């Protein structure tokens, strides 16, 4: 496959960026999207130009590092991570635009690499259960209804990739926040801190400069882990309960 790539190049956090056009040839349809970028970077290094900076780690869809805006869609045209996207999802001769996640809360470090540590600070402000560590408790000692266990597990699939923020017209982090709040809120261990958790995590979310939710659903459509919109409803319900209990 021969492709035209328009890639956002930006030398540093405050530098002015622009789209730069590159050509790549003989790309195999079986390559992953990141392997295609590796080919481009080898080409650039051979030409003596600076390679394109992009993030990746596991390259198997579990770490959430590899977020790219590919021709206007977070993680590209398939419902997966950029590292699990393959070139067979594109046409020979296609022009592909590649941009970083764009959000006030995710400042650009360089080229396609953004700083997603705002998510870590949201987690630090309440996305945990404070239990004393020790020997693992017997798994059956605390019964969890099947539906709740399933929903907690489905919410726990979130890998913190930030595609929801990238796809949202408001750059809102509510799908991520909803996934975390639902994950812990469905389990017995999450109950004692439930009210405080949602208030604190939302406060951090807002302070970090994410937008608000307008329930339009671009986040969920882009989420590689298919986190559903009802986690945002649960987030709202938890906040309503916390506010009215005033505890």
């Amino acid at each position, binding site marked *: 496959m021969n492709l035209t790539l328009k890639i*956002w190049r930006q030398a540093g956090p405050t530098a002015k960026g622009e789209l730069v056009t590159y050509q790549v040839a003989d790309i195999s349809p079986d390559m992953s999207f990141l392997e295609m970028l590796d080919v481009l970077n080898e080409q650039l290094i051979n030409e003596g130009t600076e390679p394109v900076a992009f993030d990746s780690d596991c390259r198997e869809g579990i770490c959430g590092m590899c977020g790219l*805006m590919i*021709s*206007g*869609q977070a993680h590209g045209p398939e419902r997966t991570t950029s590292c699990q996207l393959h070139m067979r999802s594109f046409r020979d001769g296609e022009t592909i*635009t590649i*941009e970083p996640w*764009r*959000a*006030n809360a995710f400042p650009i470090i360089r080229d396609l690499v953004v700083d997603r*540590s705002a998510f*870590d*600070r949201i987690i*630090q*402000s309440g996305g945990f259960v*404070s*239990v*004393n560590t020790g020997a693992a408790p017997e798994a059956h000692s605390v019964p969890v209804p099947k539906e709740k266990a399933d929903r907690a597990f489905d919410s726990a699939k979130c890998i913190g990739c930030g595609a929801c923020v990238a796809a949202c*017209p*408001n*750059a*809102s982090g509510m799908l991520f926040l909803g996934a975390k709040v639902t994950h812990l809120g469905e389990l017995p261990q999450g109950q*004692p*801190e439930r*009210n*405080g958790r949602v*208030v*604190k995590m*939302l*406060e951090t979310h*807002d302070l970090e*400069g*994410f*937008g*608000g*939710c*307008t*329930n*339009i*659903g*671009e*986040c*969920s*459509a*882009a989420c590689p882990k298919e986190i*559903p*919109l*009802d986690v945002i*409803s*649960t*987030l*709202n*319900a938890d*906040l*309503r309960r*916390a*506010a009215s*209990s*005033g*505890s």
Partner: protein
Amino acid sequence: MREGSPGRVCPLTTGYLEPVATTTLPAKKKGVASSSIGLKFLMAGTGVIFILYVLLHMYGNLKALAGQEAFDTYAHHLRTFGEPMLPYGGLLWVVRIVLILALVGHVYAALRLIARNNAARPVKYQVKKNVGSTLASRTMRWGGLALFAFIIFHLIQFTIVKPNLYGAADSEAIKESPYVMISAAFAMWWVLLIYVIALVALGMHLYHGIYSASQTMGLNNTATARARARAIGAVVAAVIVVGFLIPPVYIFIDSL
């Protein structure tokens, strides 16, 4: 974690986590109301007030089909309702004040949220596709602006000034009989057109708004509940649009 311990180091940021003295975090009440979700509560609450009012208003309008006497009597009853406990027009004023407060709250929340959402993405994408959202959901702001303009026009036209824009013979009768007023107005094609456009805007605002409000109030905790909320939104929006359209269209056709 034990009391007084210095806090764990977060491996991701190498920053210190705040030490947690007790096993429960205190919920801070301050700030919830003006948080991004708190403002949505205000938006949804005031939106629900509008929906209830609009349903009553639509029902009342349908009385126009029963003729001049029925409609004018109904309009009069709205003013004498609750007498002698309430003064003449008392209930009407209670409703008006509630609606004005709701409007102020709704627009205030809208403006604050729009400002926050715009600031959240200072640099736009060069290429962006929308794949998971409806047109109605993406035009809530423009639809809201259209509704705001329409509400002002509508109040001047039928409540505050009642001008004779229609070249009707008797300007006094327009001021005195609501039935004469709407009959003269909707005989004009351009008045009908304005109302059709406004109702399309209202229908789209509600098609997304009803679903969105149920989501905001935290009622959709399963996929089924979410699908149901969508369906209810579509049905209620359709009922309101059609219900409001019947009297004007009937009057227009009747006048031909």
